[in-house]
């Protein structure tokens, strides 16, 4: 497994309030990381820094072994795609136009090529939103929008996918489908990092859990070992306990 991402001593603060404090971890091909933590724990900020949207105050991020500072933004975008937590959707782009924007870092052509169009179609079919391709994004439901945005991420064809709460607004079936798609992406050799509040989705689909608390990585555990030490659960609520599904998958119960 080759390393795709190395985060080394990354710190960041907003107006004097420390959000991340010397965060260090690395991840490689085939991993599906769940980035966990309570609200305000720095999950989105960490994803922003990895995607190159924000610069860390200290520390560094390396993508495929090369320091991010030495990449052009467009080069990073070919390696790392980012699904943001929210976007303004007032302008009436169609679903297909939004997904096609994922091809931006790959081409300088005025219009996308046939190959780009194939990527767009495949991504939209995988996230079950091809039928909505001609509809204005603003007219879609929350769940439909989230699927379109996920398709835009897939169409970018990057080796690392950063997803900020990808299952927001999705119904149960679509949540499962979304995480299945991401797990499949990881199995094809990509690295997926999803910030999520759904512990059971993380335990079911992800290979590794990174728990942020007070700006540091409080726990970095493989999902299969989530049973061994339940201290990480206490960071979310004292009303949680660990069990297992009949198939043996770790499962969090709410009391």
């Amino acid at each position, binding site marked *: 497994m080759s390393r795709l991402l190395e985060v080394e001593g990354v710190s960041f603060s907003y107006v004097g309030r420390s959000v991340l404090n010397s965060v260090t971890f690395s991840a490689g091909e085939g991993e599906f990381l769940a980035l966990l933590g309570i609200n305000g724990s720095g999950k989105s900020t960490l994803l922003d820094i990895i*995607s190159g949207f924000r610069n860390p105050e200290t520390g560094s991020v390396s993508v495929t072994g090369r320091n991010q500072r030495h990449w*052009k933004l467009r080069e990073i975008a070919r390696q790392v795609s980012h699904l*943001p937590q929210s976007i303004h959707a007032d*302008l009436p782009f169609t679903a*297909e*136009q939004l997904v096609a924007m994922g091809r931006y870092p790959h081409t300088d052509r005025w*219009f996308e090529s046939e190959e780009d*169009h194939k990527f767009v179609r495949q991504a939209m079919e995988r996230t079950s939103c091809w039928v909505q391709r001609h509809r204005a994004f603003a007219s879609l439901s929350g769940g439909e929008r989230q699927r379109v945005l996920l398709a835009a991420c897939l169409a970018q064809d990057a080796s690392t996918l950063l997803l900020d709460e990808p299952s927001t607004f999705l119904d149960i079936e679509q949540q499962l489908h979304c995480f299945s798609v991401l797990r499949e992406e990881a199995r094809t050799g990509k690295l997926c990092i999803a910030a999520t509040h759904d512990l059971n989705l993380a335990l079911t689909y992800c290979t590794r859990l990174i728990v942020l608390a007070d700006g540091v990585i409080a726990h970095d555990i493989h999902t299969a070992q989530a049973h061994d030490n339940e201290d990480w659960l206490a960071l979310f609520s004292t009303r949680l306990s660990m069990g297992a599904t009949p198939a043996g998958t770790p499962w969090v119960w709410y009391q």
Partner: protein
Amino acid sequence: MSAQGFSFGTRYSVTLSVLIFLGAAFLLPWVGAGPISLVRVLRHESPDYDILLQLRISRTLLALVAGGALSLAGTLLQAMLRDALATPYTLGISAGASLGAVAVIAAGWEAFLGVPMIWIGALAGAFGVLILVIGGSFRRRQISAFSLLLTGIAINSVCAAFIIILSSFAGMSRSFSIARWLIGSIDATSYRSLGALTAVVLITSTLILFQARSWNLLAVGERWAASRGVHVGRLLTQGYVLGSILVAGAIALTGPIGFVGLIVPHLVRSRISPDHRILMPCAFFLGGSLLAFCDALGRIVMPPAELPAGAVLALIGGPYLVWVIRQRIPVEEI
């Protein structure tokens, strides 16, 4: 979206817009309070030949170029601020140009080295505001649409206050000139000035259009654009500088004509395509055509008096704006 993915109407909309633009350029000079004889023009006989060549054609061309520039600037600002109701004037450039022009009118300066001082004042005011807004918007060596908007609105208000103060002390006749300039109008201009404006608009518009794919991304969101390889701060600064050059150049010759930068981009976006590769050229050509049409309408509606093109546009644009606000879906976040 691939070129093949565009509908028939969308694919030919740019061509159609160019044809409308050319149609306006050839037909509208013939529209005016008095008829012009084609035969007399062909024989170079006065006054028909002189009226057409020296007054009507230059005036129509000015309306086409200035209207196109203002419409394109509106499209650009709407993408940068992610607000379909943003106008070329939202970020204070118009107020700066107006303050410069009003100061010149109030002082009674006429010309400097043959160049009307009012143009120099408008350009100086616009670029003064440009530097202030960009300087005031940088925070932690980064710039965002939000900081541009807030700084622009603040400077807009300061300029508006100074305009009122200058108007109050300018005396009756100069106050009237100030009010007339502020509503915006198309007057016959020299071909030299027109050529200079056309060159500036052509270069600036081309630079803006080359970035059409990036404007698409920025119109969705700054984080969205950055994670697809766009240098957001650099693009916003470029957009503001280029948009300001367009607006300053146009209104130095016409005064601050409103609404063309609002109506046309909105219509094209909703009826043809929100994709800036289509939207921007269509907005330019149709914006120029609309302003030239309004100017021609102003010439014939109450002859021999002429309504300023800015007033005709405001009469059309005001009700249209109310309609837009009533139809508008609120900004949605997901």
